[in-house]
């Protein structure tokens, strides 16, 4: 025992000496003023699913961002000087802690994160962002992000999409008095969709007839579909992911249940129109989102994107997640341009730039967003409603653009933290 104690004393001394030798390493990292900025190159991080079932969202999103950066760099970069470099890491969508690990891996190499997928992934990162003063542009649209200082949110929040979708069905569609239900993924994203439906119910004076929750890896949807059918749902707001949506709709079609599905856009993928559900989708499926349809060249940004795709990624097929990544890169450029203009590319400088940025229009690829200090940010409150059209580029054709309801105008954005 005495010998053991002696050895422990040696251990303590060894650790102290080694620690003293290496103490400078931690100081050195802290002393670097502009992480992610090396000469005239600014590195932007991306943590997206590239290899799991949600790679259908993450991979094209990273590609869209890369194409925008390629086009921007070819024009000379930000302020004709700074080239942008994308550093991408793979996450596992079902496990938010994978994003925290990847964040630790590359945080010292990037000026900011241009995209991180997953509401729960953002929740996991929030304490780390505050500590490291790193900004993240989330590829997820919870209303809570509007008031988070370390996030650089864009697009209208999920809650707004859901309430505008419901309102369009009931009011614009002339179906007042019909039963509204919700079927949502049991994650922060799903809860945000459900919150939108609940808020719409309160403001528009209807009762949500039924709500069903499901998990990403659920295989059997007979029980929730039966529940919704028994509640005589005329419309169901769906917050889902592409791989699950197919299974849900398959179960619904088999049960002869055909309400108007109002899906938040992460539940859609263009490949679904090639499935046996094609006719069912055409008749019963809407997608809500506040971005334009692929190929709508009346939108300034869409025309630019098409020419960038032709030049830098000619094999790219129409994909809403590609255009999402492209639009996010546009936001990153706006933010970094402002930081360059203010002469400060440090993390604190980028944060200050976000507070004085003003309105970013996203060249029409997303609703105009008014930036400022987190408490004063104002996201767009309108939504585009799409129906399924197998002949349209991403299987979606606009049913109504820029639709907004009074409930969406009344919704207050709050931080729950």
């Amino acid at each position, binding site marked *: 025992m005495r010998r053991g104690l002696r050895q422990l004393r040696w251990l303590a001394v060894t*650790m102290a000496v080694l620690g003293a*030798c290496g103490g400078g390493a931690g100081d050195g*990292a802290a002393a670097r003023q502009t992480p992610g900025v090396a000469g005239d190159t600014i590195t932007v991080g991306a943590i997206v699913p590239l*290899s799991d079932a949600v*790679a259908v969202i993450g991979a094209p999103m990273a590609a869209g961002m890369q194409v925008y950066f390629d086009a921007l760099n070819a024009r000379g970069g930000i302020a004709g000087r700074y080239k942008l470099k994308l550093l991408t890491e*793979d996450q596992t969508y079902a496990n*938010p802690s994978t994003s925290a*690990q990847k964040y630790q891996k590359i945080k010292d190499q990037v000026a900011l994160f241009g995209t991180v997928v997953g509401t729960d992934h953002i*929740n996991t990162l929030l304490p780390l962002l505050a500590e490291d003063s790193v900004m993240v542009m989330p590829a997820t649209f919870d209303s809570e992000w509007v008031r988070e200082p370390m996030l650089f949110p864009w697009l209208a929040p999920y809650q707004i999409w859901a309430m505008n979708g419901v309102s369009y069905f009931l009011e614009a569609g002339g179906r007042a008095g019909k039963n509204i239900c919700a079927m949502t993924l049991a994650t922060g994203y799903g809860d945000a969709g459900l919150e939108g439906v609940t808020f719409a119910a309160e403001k528009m004076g209807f009762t949500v007839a039924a709500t069903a929750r499901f998990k990403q890896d659920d295989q059997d949807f007979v029980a929730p579909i039966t529940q919704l059918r028994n509640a005589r749902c005329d419309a169901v707001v769906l917050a889902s992911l592409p791989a699950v949506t197919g299974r849900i709709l398959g179960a619904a079609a088999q049960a002869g249940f055909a309400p108007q599905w109002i899906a938040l856009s992460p539940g859609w993928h263009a490949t679904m129109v090639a499935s046996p559900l094609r006719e069912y989708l055409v008749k019963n499926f809407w997608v809500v989102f506040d971005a334009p349809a692929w190929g709508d060249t009346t939108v300034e940004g869409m025309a630019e994107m098409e020419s960038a795709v032709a030049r830098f990624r000619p094999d790219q097929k129409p994909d809403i997640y590609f255009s999402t990544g492209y639009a996010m890169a546009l936001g990153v450029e706006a933010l970094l341009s402002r930081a360059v203009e203010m002469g400060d590319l440090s993390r604190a400088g980028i944060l200050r730039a976000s507070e004085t940025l003003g309105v970013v229009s996203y060249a029409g690829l997303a609703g105009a967003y008014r930036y400022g200090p987190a408490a004063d940010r104002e996201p767009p409150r309108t939504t585009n409603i799409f129906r399924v059209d197998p002949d349209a580029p991403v299987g979606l054709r606009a049913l109504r653009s820029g639709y907004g309801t009074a409930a969406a105008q009344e919704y207050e954005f709050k931080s729950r933290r």
Partner: protein
Amino acid sequence: MIRRLRNTRITTEYAHDLALWRSRPAQVGVLLLFGVIAAAPFLVGNYWTTVLIYGGIAAVGTIGLNLLTGFTGQASLGHAFFFGTGAYASVVLSGRFGLPFPLWLIGAAMLGGLIGGLVGPFALRLRGNYLVIVSLGLVFVGQHLFENWTSVTGGLTGISVRAPVAIGPFDAAALTLPGASGTLTRNQGYYYFVWLTVLALGLAARNLVRSRPGRALQAIRDRDLAAEVIGVSLVQYKVGAFVVSSAYAACAGAMYASYARYVSPLDFTFFLSIQYVAMMVVGGVGSVLGSVIGAVFLTALPRLIESASASLPFVAAQGGSGGVTVFTINQALFGVLIIVFLLVEPLGMVEIWRRIKRYFLAWPFSY
């Protein structure tokens, strides 16, 4: 020569069998190992420090599982439940009741031990496969609880954790080392906190298994009826093994929550139990050092595969582009390693290490 052999291989007294570190080379080796562990965060960078932190946390959990399964012979797939219990206990004890460090950590371990003590009596009635199935049920009951007890766990969307490792001026998130001008990063501070805990709990486990209770546990493992005949109380030691093992798992869970600062039920699924079994089997069943080796190896391996994926010809960078992805490899990895080790090296990586040691100890007569 005789002296050397006595110091290393041939034991002439019971004290040799009981010694923590039997020979001078072993002592030097352990000190060197401590040196490497202490220097690691400065050598491997931020990302790999994170991986080593998760490896250290997993080591604590694996030591706990090894005490129950490797030393006492009570197979369990319920480790994820106790790990999750510890994580949520730290959420409540630190966040809601405001208990400071180390009280929330001790409290979480005690709660885990208490629940383990309630589950333990099942092992008196059930053996082998039946006990495995009961422990499996525990994971699913726990999963249901974690998902639906939203006021405590935040439900499936998860909950933020505020469980700082700080007593007075000592804060693991902002450590200052003697002679250094600034503070260490949070990662570096947590690394030392986690690995000092691994050291303390590893030593405690080693002391437990080399003493009277440890011999009782091993007697139960080898033949519980015979153990009872020679006077080992099955009630006391089987339940005791569950208590200690669950307390280790809960302690690991609490450290995980404190470090990650956000937990959700997705962190404590059945897959986590499989990971722990894999760590124990790959590291070495019935070995404290093996638990640590297995935990670090299996925590780092998926990350290593990921880092090397660009140069592996059969691995596709992105899903949907054909070939096996890093994600699918990592999903299958634990199962494959359990099968390979059980077939090829049932005593785990630690036995490979022991064989190397034996070879050099008898050198040049190593045949």
